[in-house]
């Protein structure tokens, strides 16, 4: 189908974008890569009066690692995230998003704002306990991953707010595993695992409205122990901790079984991946 009519504003700066969103009341929408929003419009699931195109705002496509944190601009495309070597977990996860022609346009902030529960990057943000920088009519604020994701396709952002940057702490070791029906499809279940010091954070995508942070209790304090036994126990704990629903793509039991398998794979991956000592260019 064709998109419903809308007005179009090409923002020249973050302030200009926020002004345009404010002028539109609750009828404005940011247009970034368009890889989720344009399908939504074409299927007429939304009818915003104004699209505020942020693609030409300068200075929002940077990637810089400082003090163990990757600072990424809102407009970093999935292809660029997949290509960088400063945050290997984010790079690996980005490679799983759709296809090259989707990754060439889709943006990091767009994926986080869209908040699809099966999307890769929201899971990575939560696994790394990352945060987003947000600009709005009353200034800027910072939202942690735990605060940003509210429900399926729902974020804590107001209609007049824009993500300008993303902070992704670089884990000491990382792992990622995903099961999708076909190459490039959204995950049925994905698992991002990140070790910071002695603690492992395991986040499961596709099993709840938001990326699910596994509560593994004391087991998550690995203290250098990622032996096969510990990994088996953690995977069982992850499967126990999720409460998936059944849908077209799989029953609750199937998703639970996948959670266990993907956690096993992600942790095996993690055991082989240590953080680079040097901060690579």
């Amino acid at each position, binding site marked *: 189908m064709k*998109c419903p*009519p809308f007005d179009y504003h090409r923002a020249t700066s973050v302030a200009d974008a926020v002004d345009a969103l404010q002028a539109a009341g609750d009828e404005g929408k940011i247009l970034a890569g368009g*890889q989720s929003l*344009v399908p939504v419009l*074409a299927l007429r699931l939304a009818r915003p009066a104004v699209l505020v195109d942020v693609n030409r705002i300068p200075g929002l496509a940077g990637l810089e690692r400082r003090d163990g944190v990757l600072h990424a601009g809102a407009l970093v495309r999935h292809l660029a995230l997949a290509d960088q070597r400063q945050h290997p977990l984010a790079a690996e996860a980005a490679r799983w998003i759709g296809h090259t*022609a989707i990754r060439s*346009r889709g943006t990091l902030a767009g994926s986080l704002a869209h908040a699809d529960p099966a999307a890769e990057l929201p899971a990575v943000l939560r696994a790394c306990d990352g945060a987003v920088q947000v600009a709005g009519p009353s200034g800027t604020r910072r939202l942690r991953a735990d605060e940003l994701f509210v429900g399926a396709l729902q974020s804590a952002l107001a209609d007049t707010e824009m993500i300008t940057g993303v902070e992704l702490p670089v884990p000491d070791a990382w792992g990622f595993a995903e099961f999708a029906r076909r190459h490039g499809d959204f995950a049925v279940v994905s698992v991002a695992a990140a070790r910071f010091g002695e603690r492992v954070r395991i986040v499961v995508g596709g099993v709840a409205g938001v990326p699910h942070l596994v509560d593994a209790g004391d087991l998550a304090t690995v203290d250098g122990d990622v032996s096969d036994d510990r990994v088996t126990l953690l995977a069982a704990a992850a499967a126990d901790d999720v409460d998936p629903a059944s849908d077209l793509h799989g029953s609750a039991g199937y998703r639970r079984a996948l959670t266990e398998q993907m956690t096993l794979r992600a942790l095996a991956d993690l055991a082989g991946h240590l953080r680079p000592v040097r901060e690579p260019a």
Partner: protein
Amino acid sequence: MKITVTVNGERHRLDVEPRRTLVDALRDDLGLTGTHVGCEHGVCGACTVLVDGEPVRACLMLAVQADGASVATVEGLAGDDGTLHPLQEAFSRCHGLQCGACTPGMLMTAVHLLDTDPDPGRETIRAEMSGNICRCTGYTGIVDAVAEAARRRVTSETS
């Protein structure tokens, strides 16, 4: 809204509604119907073109977003005298097409693949072409065609 787009090297000035997608502007405003349109929501790949050298879904990009950009479509592949592009020849030879609905998107995806990776293995070809859906061929002929075009190019460059 008034925009300027360069398509296959030729500059065009257009006046388009903001909601017009790039693929509709190419087909309906410029008469370049080589680029096909299937699903109109990013899934089938039929509309794939190159914008400033990168593959994009022309059904997910607004024409106003392509203002000032350079677009390459299937019409630009063959030479002015009608000589087929090596990929087009390979598709023909290897039975990489039947009805042709998916072919323009397949070709543009393959052009970009061989530009970035001149010697991809079959696994890479399969992975990179997997975003384009074909209802006819069963894909084997398509993978054969891309592999053959790559092989010929590598051979002709080293001989």
